[in-house]
Structures are given as C-alpha cells and as structure tokens.
C-alpha cells in the first residue's frame, strides 16, 4: 500500500482583499467580510503543494481534509484538482467561527483523521491567514500522539521517515522523524500549482466524503474554550506638527533635526 498523505485545509476569506472588505463589528465581537470569496488558507495551499511534490517522487495518495460550515465546493474542487485524490469535508451548520477555536478545531480534525487511518503523513499550513494562531497543527499531533515538525520549507519522505528542512530566522535546520508524523508547512515551500480548467472539471469525479459530527468518535457538544471578551479595531492616532522657519532651507534643517530626535531617520 502506497504512502497516504492527509492535508488539512482551512477555508478562509481571501486574505488578499483590501482592508475595506473587513469590518470589525465590536458589538457582535466578530469581523464581517464583504465582497471576498472563500479561499484555501495560503499556508495550507503550500502544504498541499509539498504533498503533491512528495507524491510525485514517492507515489501514494493525497486526501484533502477540511472542516466548517457551508464549505465552498468550488474552492475544494480547485484545490483537489491541483493533485489530490480525494476530499473529506467535516461539515455541519453548527461549526461556525464562534465554536471553532484552536482547541475544538484540533479535536474535530483529530477525530476526523482517525476515520482516515491508516495515514503516513499529515501536512498543514504553519498558521491560518484569518486567525494566525498557528496552534491547530500541533494540537492535532498532540491528540493523535504523532511527532510534529513545524515551519517546513522542504519535506521529503524515504524509508518510513520524513526529512524536513525547518525554517530558522538565519537559515534552516534539517529534522528527521519516523512516520506517521505531522508537519506544518511554511510559505517557503512555494505556491500551489494552478490546475487547468479541464483538470478542475475532471476533479468533480474524484471521491468526496461528507462527515457529520455524529459520525466522529467525540463527545458532543463540542465547546470552545476561548471566549472573545472584546473585539475592536486598533486605534489610529495621528498628530501633525508644522515646522516653521523663515526660509525653506532653515525649515528643512529643522525638519531633519526633528526626524533625527524622533529616531525616524
């Protein structure tokens, strides 16, 4: 039996949208998104790309696993078409933003992963572009008792082991661990390849399984441990000082002096 890689993919509002598309609603303690489509979290796309490269070298199969409510089939389809073999969606109306903190997400994903056993490698992004917590991957590894390596810029599999180039602030280190394992992937891996329209249409034929919460071996209801106490946009304060002088040259000199004192230059 070939290598089985599971890629965890979170659906997020397109992070490339302009700031005006995000409205902080303090009363509702949530950020409303306007005019943006859902996309696969870019770091999870990097993870999928890493998985496809492993599959190209070592063979095997890739399952894309996503979790949430109203998951966009078109978005999943495009991701799967890039090189996955199947998709599994844990989907329920109750799985909204308020319920899904990092812990509950990890619990649900770990339970979903148990239904996909046997798997050799779990890949996911280093963090999600909407919350940027970077906790879920490690949480899943903890719950499943898997060794975990974070911040991968290159992932290779050979002889039942995974070799990971792990990003450091001043270079990288190579980490090796036995399979099965979980690796969180960084942007340095590279962008997910873009599938052709024909490939996207053909991907409609690939198997897709919808999993409900009652299908998972977890105790319900799932509760969020993190409570949002308040949510507010950062305050922007601007102060304006006029530099006055008799001549432009003098004004320039004073301006330079002020900038120097304020440690701007």
């Amino acid at each position, binding site marked *: 039996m070939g290598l089985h890689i599971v890629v965890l993919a979170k*659906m997020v509002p*397109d992070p*490339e*949208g*302009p700031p*005006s*598309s995000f409205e902080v609603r303090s009363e509702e303690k949530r950020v409303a*998104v*306007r*005019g*943006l*489509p*859902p996309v696969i979290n870019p770091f999870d796309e990097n993870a999928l790309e890493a998985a496809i490269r492993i599959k190209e070298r070592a063979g095997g199969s890739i399952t894309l696993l996503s979790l949430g409510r*109203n*998951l*966009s*089939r*078109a*978005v999943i*389809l*495009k991701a799967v078409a890039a090189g996955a073999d199947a998709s599994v969606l844990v989907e329920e109306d109750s799985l909204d933003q308020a319920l899904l903190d990092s812990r509950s997400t990890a619990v649900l994903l770990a339970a979903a992963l148990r239904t996909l056993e046997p798997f050799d490698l779990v890949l996911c992004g280093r963090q999600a572009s909407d919350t940027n917590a970077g906790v879920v991957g490690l949480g899943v590894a903890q719950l499943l008792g898997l060794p975990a390596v974070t911040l991968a810029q290159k992932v290779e599999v050979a002889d039942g082991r995974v070799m990971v180039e792990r990003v450091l602030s001043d270079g990288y280190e190579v980490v090796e661990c036995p399979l099965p394992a979980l690796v969180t992937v960084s942007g340095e891996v590279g962008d997910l390849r*873009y599938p052709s*329209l024909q490939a*996207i*249409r053909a991907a409609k034929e690939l198997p897709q399984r919808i999993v409900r919460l009652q299908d998972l071996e977890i105790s319900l209801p799932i509760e969020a441990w993190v409570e949002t106490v308040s949510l507010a946009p950062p305050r922007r304060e601007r102060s304006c000082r006029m530099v006055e002088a008799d001549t432009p040259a003098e004004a320039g000199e004073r301006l330079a002096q002020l900038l120097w004192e304020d440690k701007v230059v």
Partner: protein
Amino acid sequence: MALSDYQRDMEGCSRCSSCKWVPFNQIKSWRFAKNCPSICRYNFHAYSGSGRMIIGLSLLTGRSELNDNVAEIVYKCQLCGACDTACKVYRDDIDLTEVLLELRAHCVEQGFLMVEHMAMIDALKREDNVLGEPKAKRGEWAEGLPLKDINRERCEVLFHAGCRYSYDPDLRGTVRGAALLLLEAGLDVGIAGAEESCCGGRAYELGYRGEAENYAEDLLSRVKASGARILVTPCADGYAHFRYLYPRMGKELPCEILHMTQLLDRLVREGRLRFREQFPLLFTYHDPCHLGRMGEPYLGDWKGDKLQRPMSLKRAGRKGVYEAPRNLIQALPGAGLVEMERIREYSWCCGAGGGVHEAFPEFSSWTARERVEEALATGAEALATACPWCVRVLRDASREMRAELPVYDLVDLALQAAGIAEKERV
C-alpha cells in the same frame, strides 16, 4: 452596499415582465422584440431580471437557500443591463442591475463560485489580466511606436489599452492603430506598457468586489502620477468602469475619461484628423452595453425613498455614448449607416459580458449569433462596433454562421479612412 440595501427594489417588482422586452414603444417587429438574452435563451421566469429579483428577495428573507442550481441562474446573465433599462421606462424605484450585481457578490461571499470565474480571478492575481496571459507581455503591442512610458515620464493623454486589446493577436492591429491615430492627431500620448493592469471591472461584475477595489486603487495612483489630462481607452468595459464604478467606489480618476470613439469624433470635428479614403460600404452599428447604457456616468447615490429620487440621479441608460460612434461612421467618406431594430439603450448584448463568455460559451455564442442575424436583417454589408469583447464574439459568430458580414472595430475603419493603415503596413 449589500443585497439587503435593495430589499425595497426587490419587493417592488410587480412581475410585469417588462424587463424581458424592448420598451414597447420601441418594438419594431416580433422577431427582435426581446431584450434579455438569458430569458430569451432559457425561457423560464427565474432567468429574467424579475425572476432574479424574486430569487434575491427569497434568499434575503431566508425563504430559500443558495445552491448550485440557483447560483448557475445568477451567473447565466451577461449583466448587460437591458432589463434595467426596460424596467426604468415604467418604474423609478427599482435598480435592477444593482440587484443582479449584489446577487453575484452574495454568491461569491457564500462560496458558490464558477470555476471558470475563479480561473479569471486567479489570472488577475497572477498576471493582472483576466485572460491569464503573461504580465511581461502586456506592452508588446506597442513595440516600435513613439509612445511615452508613464512609469518614467508625464504625458497629456494616457492610453489604457485594456486586457483583450493587449493580448488578442487578432486585435493587435486595432490597438496599434488606435495609438497611431492619436499620434497622427499630434497628441502627447503615454502608456503604462507591461505595468498596465486590468481595470478590475470584470472582477466586480463576477462578484469579486475586493479584487476590483485593489485594481481601482492601483489605476488611480498611476493616473495621478502620469499627470494626464485625459484618459482614453478603446475598451468599452474599461470605459464603463472608469466612468461609473470607480467614482461609486470613491476612486474617481482626476482627469477627463473618454472612450476612443469619443476622442476620435472630437479630433475629426476639430479637423485634427482627416478621413480621406473612400469607404463605399453600408454599415450597421452594434452598441456595446458598456459603452451605451452601462457606460452612463456615475450620477450620485440617492438615500431614501427612490420614488422621491430626482430624475437627474435615475440611471436609465440614456446618458451612455451613442452619438460619437455613429458620427464616426457617418464621417467615413462614402459610407452609409443603417440601424438595427434594437439600438442605443435598448440594444441587444453581444453575449460576452458578465463572465458568460468564459463559463457558458455556448450561451455567449448563441447571443452573438442572434445579434448577427439582426444585423443581417438590416441589409448592411458590414457590422461595426467599438468594444474588443463585442468584436471578438461577433466576429466568431459571423464566422460560425458563415455569414457574409465582416465585423469591424471602429478604430480599424478610422485607421483606414485616415490612410494610416497603409503607412503602418509599409
């Protein structure tokens, strides 16, 4: 804005079906009496402007849910605006096109996306054009032309080529010709070359508003830096978005915005461009939606009861560009103009708009064939138009139908009439 902002518009629809027809006082024959390609092709009320408003209201009030079938109905529409124009003959309080656009945005936000549209948006993100062509090649059309590079120097007239003109090999001569005509008239013309981006309007129409806003921001800063007094584009889509969408988004461009036909008409009238060559052909003219009714400038928003809205703020399509292209045809020595039945603000769409050309090519082609049939019915020897998307699909349709009806871009006609085409060839 959101779908909820148009609840009263949707509730106000009396289902009279006027949105399906050319305004009754303008109908000339039963054959060409319908105005909406979608209802005409699919013949079920949901595919009409009214039907889509009923869908929108139902979704908004939670009486039904979005699914793939409903989303497909929303997307099987060229957003040509004909339904809106017809509706506004009778109603002052419904902005139908806005409802259609809000429905698109709603579908996108909910993740009901067409993969073909996703490909266009990805192409935009990667290469800054909706065709997925390499960004580095965007300025290649202008090779060898003495045009200023606005990335390095200021100019009086900024020429925005647009996506299709920049890359469609069949239209290469047209876009070069447009620039040559401006140079012939002695204008100080600059282009952004490889740095030119899509106007983003197509993204807005597909429902990807955030993406559209990014492009508007980009173009605004580029125009400011160029110091241009006039922005001219041969792309009708771009023109409409610069005139309507940008100011509506608060990104008004600080210069006069002209479509190529408007500037050519001005140059001819001022005697700065002379048409010398004979053109003994009988033309009919196709009004591109984005130059006509959708090209109507932004008139300002009206808050409150739309029944109280001043007529000056009612967007009924009549302030689009209709005269300049016709003036140009009439200025061609020896040429004649015969009108089709559906013209000006109640013109039939070419079929290319709203992402239909990409997602439903058969529907797009059917719509274009219908227009070619209408053109043939006039007895015209050639069809002229002023939009690269219209030229593309009408030319393809004419070829598919084996119709003896050449489809011209007005720029090509002006180029030949001014005798520049020959010079360029030499």
